[in-house]
């Protein structure tokens, strides 16, 4: 990889000041950034490692919301008693990102800022109606994820926390590529009161909500309610891993699994 100036600021102010410089990038867990830099797909003049900035990691209940710091690792979300008590479907999602060694480094802030079309967390944020807190503002998840590897983040702006409303029940269904563990299709469903939201990852260029699935589940939050659903396929990817028809079917199958998981976790 091309060399860079490595900075490890110890305050958020210092981090933002270094990031305001020319061609500076943020390093969180590095699970996507470092492989991309090794392949010379990405390079920068200054790499700003956020691991020493205090207050960026941790999980807390704040009223009816669960707040997860940007530098909180997948392994910590997966193992957190608080997450398991409040949104067990989110802990279960985190437990199946990549492999264990990746989960020991990868962070929620890094994952959502990268917005890989097959990443798991974006589906949870959109389905749960989460808000992304940054160094300057709060962005609703649906407005945060803007396109393939694109987010609403401005240059020099960093994610500080993700705020999840606590649902009545939620679950995730994922068909993982056996090689990369990325989702060929992943569906997160969340039910709060009478409202069901479903978000799909891995199947399109960017995470998206699935109104057909939501409508069916609003009537009856059961796997059976999805038996005769067909999706509008315009947004569905077709590639060497899975063609459009296969993926469209997979989305419905994963939505059913997500509902099964949500019901099971809710006891």
């Amino acid at each position, binding site marked *: 990889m091309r060399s860079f100036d490595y900075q490890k600021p110890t305050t958020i102010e210092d981090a933002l000041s270094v990031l305001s410089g020319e061609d500076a990038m943020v390093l969180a867990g590095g699970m996507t950034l470092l*492989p991309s830099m*090794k392949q010379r797909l990405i390079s920068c003049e200054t790499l700003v490692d956020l691991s020493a900035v205090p207050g960026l990691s941790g999980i807390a209940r704040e009223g009816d919301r669960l707040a997860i710091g940007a530098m909180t690792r997948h392994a910590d979300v997966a193992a957190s008693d608080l997450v398991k008590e409040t949104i067990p479907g989110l802990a279960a999602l985190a437990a199946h990102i*990549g492999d*264990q*060694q990746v989960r020991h480094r990868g962070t929620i802030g890094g994952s959502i800022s990268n917005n890989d079309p097959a990443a798991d967390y974006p589906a949870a944020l959109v389905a749960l109606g989460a808000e992304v807190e940054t160094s300057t503002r709060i962005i609703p998840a649906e407005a945060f994820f803007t396109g393939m590897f694109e987010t609403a983040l401005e240059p020099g702006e960093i994610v500080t926390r993700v705020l999840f409303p606590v649902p009545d029940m939620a679950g995730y269904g994922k068909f993982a590529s056996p090689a990369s563990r990325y989702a060929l299709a992943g569906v997160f469903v969340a039910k709060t009161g009478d409202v069901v939201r479903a978000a799909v990852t891995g199947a399109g260029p960017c995470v998206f909500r699935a109104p057909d699935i939501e409508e069916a589940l609003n009537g009856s939050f059961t796997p059976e309610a999805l038996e005769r659903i067909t999706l509008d396929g315009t947004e569905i990817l077709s590639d060497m891993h899975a063609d459009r028809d296969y993926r469209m079917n997979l989305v419905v199958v994963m939505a059913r699994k997500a509902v099964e998981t949500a019901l099971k976790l809710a006891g």
Partner: protein
Amino acid sequence: MKISFTLNEKAVSVDADPATLLADLLRENLNMTGTHVGCDTSQCGACVVHLNGESVKSCTLLAASVDGQEVKTVEGLAKSKDELHPMQTAFRDNHGLQCGFCTPGMLMASIDLVNKNPEPTEGEVRDWLEGNICRCTGYQNIVKSVLAGAAAMRDGN
């Protein structure tokens, strides 16, 4: 830049380019070649080491990031030349390796598992080793070794 950290319970300090990966620093700068680099794309797990006691892939970790931290490699497992770590003994006794290339990563990942979960089930072992690939044979004897190693670690052997 100067990178100082604890490696296998000894303080080390190395001058290296900030773009140096931990796996390369260990192998090239410190001549610690027990940590292997297989795929170099964080898939295969041959490069797994412990960072502050947790298994991580050293091919996808900047050496600069371990400044001030504790790193343990496969070289730090055996108590002496004659006394292997119980997990190493279990791999030897259960034919848990053939060519041995993946073994350093398998050992480091497995020991992290058993430290956190002293009595893992076979399923938990297989899940935990998801990111460790063996291309010689299969995973049967590796899993057998980890279960035997876990029992030996519990017994304090």
